[in-house]
């Protein structure tokens, strides 16, 4: 059968005779990788552009149309030691990128205006206490207005628009007081300039916008980055399927290009990328990613298969169905929708702060004006003082307090192998005080391990490993990996559903079912472990039994201990059978566990804990966990999780260890602590500055110093989120 790879779905035209493809690349993390990849790819003739994006871990490639097959780039990267996958930018991500760029443009304009207005303000401030002529001062004020007004009109757009949206919906948000403050400050300054007054606040208004835009940009940039990560995760899953494009001819195509009704080929050892039903063939499938059940299920004509199941022994032909047709999936989707709707909209810390902020500030400004009028000041002076209160209280530091910490904390988490999927994940994770673990694939590793390798003579084990290289069966793959086998045995024959055999030096070697190797008698002792699959190896008349199972993650015990040390409750809810769950719970010393739990039961348990006031962190990977991941206060998934679960989880962690779970909790707690501290700093600043403003002695110089001082203080404090300890215990 002829197999081709078809990447045309991902290739787009980039102008005159040039084609473009984006690849997500695994394992790019330093300048060395970057140079190596760019050099390696540029060396291919007709490549016109090969550029690595280290932030997003992607490579952009362009070449002369029709001269190259994109598959060649992937092969070349493979040679260089990197796995690469074609990539399609989602429209949501493009929107985030556009917004990010717009904010950066606004920031550039605002920063330019601030610097130039400041250049004109400083002569006025020093001139006011020396020998400046009023005409010169007016000239400088008019020049400032000439720069500040158009710049504010442009750079203020993000705030004005958002404030307008809020007001049209008859609500309020942080941008309403910001917009009012900026517009009033500019308006008052123009009036004061016309009246030849000593003070104008153009510099304060535009500086305020600059600082706020820094906070806004950091916030947006984090959102963009989480989107990019989510996009990469989807691409790294490398979801392609072998689709029949003609009788006996198949092509490896991306899942996005597969439609219901298509027929795909599922070979042994392959993970199914689509939902559908078997139309031909007979095999066993591993559905642990779907149901948490570790025992294999028999698949024959008519059996439904779901994306994420692993085909074990035979070759299957699968007719693709639309997702909603599959009954199991429909049930999970229904539960997931309910859970997502019920998820009470979490009030972010910034929103809570701004809800208090606006009324307090506006009331203070109003009272200041009334107070001065009652005390006998003119309306003009009273209003000038009131506006000064608005300017000095404008939430510079408040706007920076949270995004700066989030940016730095998410960077630190990224380094320890945790990716954020949602913006408020850090705040919610910091509050978690109870962890529910799924067992299969979460506490245990998704790949199989040989449990009794130590009991088998090393030379025999190596021979078994070399023989195993000739089979696609996942158990065989586990044996080959455990034995670190490199050279397959020549002339090995695979008998589907039975095993592999070969003859070496006149001795027959067999690896496979115990019956295939004539080793049934030995099996009794090895099946004590309820989760293990048994595979036998025979060399002539010598027989051995290997017990293969999913092992616990290497540091699972340390992580459980670390969580206990942090006073976090732990329990296991698994869809797997009781003996298997019990064994894992025992090994980890977790007294609270339940086996055979359905997705609906998991949600019920989470609700029960919620009633008691617990904030639940759900850690799971299976499709059956997706609804409970959405129902929990906050959720995490390993990178190996089912697609649906990963998209639902707030955080995703990489690699084999479980330690990122604890690292993420620690980092988020520290970040929340710093966010609160920053808010208090901002409040403390206001407590000091507001009386000065009310008393009417604020000059533009004091306003500028106070605003930049408090903002810089908050930014410096945020930098402390960078140092997260690597030690988890």
């Amino acid at each position, binding site marked *: 059968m002829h197999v081709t790879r078809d990447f045309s779905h991902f290739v787009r035209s980039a102008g005159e005779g040039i084609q473009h493809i984006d690849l997500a690349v695994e394992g790019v993390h330093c300048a060395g990788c*970057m140079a190596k990849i760019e050099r390696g790819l540029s060396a291919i003739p007709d490549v016109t552009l090969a550029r690595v994006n280290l932030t997003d871990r992607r490579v952009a490639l362009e070449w002369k149309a029709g001269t190259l097959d994109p598959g060649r780039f992937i092969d070349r990267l493979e040679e260089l030691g990197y796995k690469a996958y074609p990539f399609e930018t989602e429209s949501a991500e493009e929107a985030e990128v556009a917004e990010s760029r717009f904010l*950066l443009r606004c920031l*550039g304009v605002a920063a330019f205006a601030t610097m*130039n207005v400041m250049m*004109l303000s400083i002569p006025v401030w020093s001139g006011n206490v020396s020998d400046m002529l009023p005409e010169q001062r007016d000239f400088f004020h008019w020049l400032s207005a000439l720069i500040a007004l158009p710049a504010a009109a442009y750079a203020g757009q993000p705030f004005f628009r958002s404030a307008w949206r809020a007001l049209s919906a008859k609500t309020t948000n942080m941008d309403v007081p910001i917009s009012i403050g900026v517009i009033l400050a500019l308006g008052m300054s123009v009036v004061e300039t016309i009246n030849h007054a000593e003070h104008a606040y153009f510099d304060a208004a535009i500086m305020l916008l600059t600082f706020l835009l820094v906070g806004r940009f950091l916030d947006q940039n984090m959102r963009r980055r989480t989107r990019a990560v989510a996009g990469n995760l989807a691409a790294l899953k490398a979801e392609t399927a072998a689709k029949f494009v003609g009788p006996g001819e198949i092509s490896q195509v991306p899942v996005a290009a597969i439609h219901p009704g298509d027929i795909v080929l599922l070979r042994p050892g392959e993970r199914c990328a689509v939902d559908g039903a078997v139309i031909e063939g007979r095999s066993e499938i591993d559905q642990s990613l779907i149901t948490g059940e570790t025992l294999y299920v028999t698949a024959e004509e008519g059996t439904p298969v779901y994306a994420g199941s692993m085909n074990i022994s035979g070759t299957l032909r699968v007719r693709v169905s639309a997702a909603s047709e599959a009954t199991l999936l429909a049930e999970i989707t229904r539960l997931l929708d309910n859970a997502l709707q019920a998820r009470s909209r979490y009030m972010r810390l910034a929103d809570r702060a701004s809800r208090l902020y606006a009324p307090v500030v506006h009331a203070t400004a109003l009272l200041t004006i009334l107070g001065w009028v009652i005390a006998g000041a003119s309306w003009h002076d009273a209003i000038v003082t009131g506006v000064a209160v608005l300017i000095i209280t404008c939430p510079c530091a408040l706007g920076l307090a949270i995004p700066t910490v989030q940016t730095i904390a998410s960077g630190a988490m990224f380094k320890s192998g945790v990716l954020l999927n949602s913006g408020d994940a850090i705040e919610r994770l910091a509050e978690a005080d109870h962890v529910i673990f799924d067992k299969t694939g979460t506490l245990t590793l998704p790949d199989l391990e040989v449990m009794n390798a130590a009991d088998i003579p090393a030379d025999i084990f190596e021979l078994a490993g070399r023989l195993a290289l000739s089979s696609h069966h996942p158990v065989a793959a586990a044996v080959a990996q455990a034995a670190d086998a490199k050279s397959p045995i020549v002339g090995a024959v695979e008998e589907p559903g039975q095993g592999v055999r070969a003859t070496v030096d006149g001795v027959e070697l067999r690896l496979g079912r115990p019956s295939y190797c004539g080793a049934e008698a030995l099996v009794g002792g090895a099946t004590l472990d309820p989760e293990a699959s048994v595979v036998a190896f025979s060399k002539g008349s010598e027989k051995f039994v290997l017990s293969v199972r999913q092992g616990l993650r290497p540091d699972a015990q340390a992580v459980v201990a670390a969580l206990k040390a942090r006073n976090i409750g732990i329990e296991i809810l698994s869809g797997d059978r009781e003996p298997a769950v019990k064994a894992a719970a025992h090994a980890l010393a977790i007294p609270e566990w339940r086996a055979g739990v359905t997705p609906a039961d998991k949600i019920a348990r989470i609700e029960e804990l919620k009633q008691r006031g617990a904030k639940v962190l759900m850690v799971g990977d299976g499709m059956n966990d997706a609804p409970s991941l959405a129902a929990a206060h906050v959720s995490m998934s390993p990178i190996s999780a089912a697609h649906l679960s990963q998209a639902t989880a707030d955080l995703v962690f990489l690699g084999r260890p479980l330690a990122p779970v604890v690292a993420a909790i620690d980092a988020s707690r520290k970040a929340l602590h710093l966010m609160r501290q920053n808010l208090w700093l901002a409040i403390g600043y206001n407590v000091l500055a507001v009386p000065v403003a009310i008393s009417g002695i604020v000059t533009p110089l004091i306003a500028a110093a106070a605003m930049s001082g408090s903002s810089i203080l908050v930014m410096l404090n945020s930098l402390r989120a960078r140092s997260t300890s690597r030690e988890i215990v």
Partner: protein
Amino acid sequence: MEILVILVPLALMLGGAGLVAFLWSLRSGQYDDLDGAAWRAIADDEPPQEAPAER
């Protein structure tokens, strides 16, 4: 003080040139990969054809 008539517009023009340069660099994608840019500054500029054998 007449010198201001030259100095002030000159200063604004310089600032404006800075702004135009920033907008140009933004448009040409120079802010798309800040992590990578940080490393590129210290990378050796070897022409691609000199790609060395595996070290």
